[in-house]
Each structure stands twice: as C-alpha cells, then as structure tokens.
C-alpha cells in the first residue's frame, strides 16, 4: 500500500508518520509538499499532526486552503483513503471533508498525555483489527481538540455510525473525567459517511513500538494494510 504524507508549513509529525510507515510497517511512503497539485499513485494520504501555519487564526484553517487540498478532495471523492491525525484532523474539518469544528480544550491548556479510547465502529478500513468496544491507549498532544458539532449533525453522525473513537476510562466507560478536552460526546475520532476519510485527535504514530510504551497505533495502521489486501483480492477476483 503506497502512502503519501503531506507536509504543510508547520507540520511537525510528518517525519514520525513517515518513520512508522516505513521503518515499523515496512510500507512504501513519500512526502508530498503542500504546494503540489497532484497526488497520483497513492493509495492513502495522511495529513500529519503539527502546527500548520502556527495554528494562527484557527488550527487547520490556513492549511485547508493549500493547493494540495483540492487534489486531496478529488482523491477522496474517488474513494481514496484519507487519514488526518491531530492537526491533520483539524485541517480536514476546516476543509469541509469532515463535519464539525474544534474549540480550545475546555481546560484552556495544551494537553500531552496518554488517553484511553473505545472503538465504537470496527467496520472501517482503519479499525478492522479491533473489536467493537475494545479499549485502546494512545497519546494525545493538542490545544484544540474540543470537538464541536451542532445537535442535528451529531444525531446524523450517530445514526450513520460515524463516531469511530470516544475517550473512555481504562475500563471502557464513557465519563466526563475520561474526556481530556471537553469534546462533545467524548468524541476522539470520526469518519465520513462514505467511510474513507477518518480524522482523530490521538497520535497512532506515537505508539507503534514497545520501546515507546505501546503498540495500539501499529494495530491501527496495520488494519489499513489488512483492508487493502482484502480490497486487492476483491479487485483481482472482480477482474477475472
């Protein structure tokens, strides 16, 4: 599976995602410069974390206008897999590829810590290795992860099973104390209706090795590879 990691001015987790894909998962991966207008030849595009444009004005707002985002939209429209992590999630929201918006963390401080996540939907290309209800541990590091969406859209998200991860306790309970940023309904990650664009605040690339204290992020990324392999089989059996 060929990955493209988009580098926006101010991205700072681009090298981390690249390393996780290349060195840990052994996949082909390239950096894509934000000023590019084409993204041909990739199976998955990743918008990494960081502070694109310094998070000035609003996180993700200026990056959402980058030339490459037009190509990302077309790619997604054709069913291409798009993953936004942290600032990448914020960019997807600002670019209108996912519904909702981010407010400042309720505590008004940056938060860097491990959180627990409950897998709410394991029938996505990103979560096939998990059971529904399984509890994962991943790091977060953000200032604006307080997800907001109006009540009507929230209902639709629920209906269409678009909420993929929610902050929970170690035991998997959804409680206000387990919510690190005030996010509506403890939402940590959502997917679009078509099921090919996912955004999440936690950083899977930061937990891909035992040495770093966890491997749930590796399972998350490996789910994509599983899914891709199955698609490949389908593609080849369809063509027979």
């Amino acid at each position, binding site marked *: 599976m060929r990955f493209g990691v988009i580098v926006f001015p101010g991205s700072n987790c681009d090298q981390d995602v690249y390393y996780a894909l290349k060195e840990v998962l052994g996949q082909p991966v390239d950096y894509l410069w934000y000023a590019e207008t084409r993204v041909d030849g990739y199976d998955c595009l990743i918008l990494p974390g960081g502070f694109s*444009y*310094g998070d*000035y*004005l609003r996180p993700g*707002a*200026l990056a959402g*206008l980058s030339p490459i985002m037009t190509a990302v939209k077309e790619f997604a429209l054709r069913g291409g897999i798009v993953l936004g992590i942290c600032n990448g999630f914020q960019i997807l929201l600002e670019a209108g590829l996912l519904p909702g918006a981010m407010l400042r963390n309720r505590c008004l401080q940056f938060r860097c810590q491990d959180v627990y996540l409950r897998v709410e939907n394991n029938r996505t290309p990103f979560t096939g290795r998990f059971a529904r209800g399984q509890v994962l541990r991943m790091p977060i590091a953000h200032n604006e992860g307080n997800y907001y969406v109006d009540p009507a859209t929230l209902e639709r998200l629920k209906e269409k099973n678009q909420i993929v991860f929610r902050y929970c306790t170690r035991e998997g309970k959804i409680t206000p104390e387990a919510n690190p940023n005030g996010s509506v309904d403890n939402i940590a990650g959502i997917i679009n209706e078509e099921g090919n664009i996912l955004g999440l605040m936690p950083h899977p690339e930061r937990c891909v090795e035992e040495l770093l204290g966890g491997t749930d992020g590796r399972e998350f990324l490996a789910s994509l590879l599983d899914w891709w392999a199955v698609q490949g089989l389908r593609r080849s059996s369809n063509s027979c």
Partner: protein
Amino acid sequence: MSEFYLVRVHVTLKKGVMDPQGEAVKQGLLTLGYQGVKEVRVGKYLEVALEAPDEEEARRQVEEMCRRLLANPVLEDFSVDIHAAQRHQEEHENTSAYSI
C-alpha cells in the same frame, strides 16, 4: 437600582509589536487571490455583560478590568464601548441573554 450594560472591548496589539497571526492571515488571503490586502492585524474582541449602577461606573470598572486582566499592557492597547442593554430571562433558569 442597577442597570445592565453590554460592553464591547477591543484589545489590539500596540503599534510596532509584531503580529505573526496577522502576517499569516495576510499571506493566506494573498494566496486566495485577494491582491488588494495590504496589512492584517489580529486582535481580541470581548463582549462583557455587566450589571452596574450607572454608565460611568460601568466604564470605570471595565477600564480597570482591561488594565488588570483583559489586556496585556506590555503589548496591547484596549478600547471600550458601552451600551445600555436589556436582559432577557430565558426559559431555563440560569441562562439569560443580553442585547443592546
């Protein structure tokens, strides 16, 4: 007897203080093709709903708030507009809204 006021506070960077946000927004607007944009400065805007005996006292209080908390005197200037306001008690107990 006390009145309600809606106070609008503008907090802006002092002249000469660098404004990285404004610079980034300007670049963004130029990228979007708004070639007429010459400069952008980003500041804060606060709306404070205040109960005070009269307008003079309201102003005195808000200016003091600005000096003590709302603006950073090292880097920022502020300005204050005061409007007499009406309080709307809403259906829920604790919520209310103010309008000019």
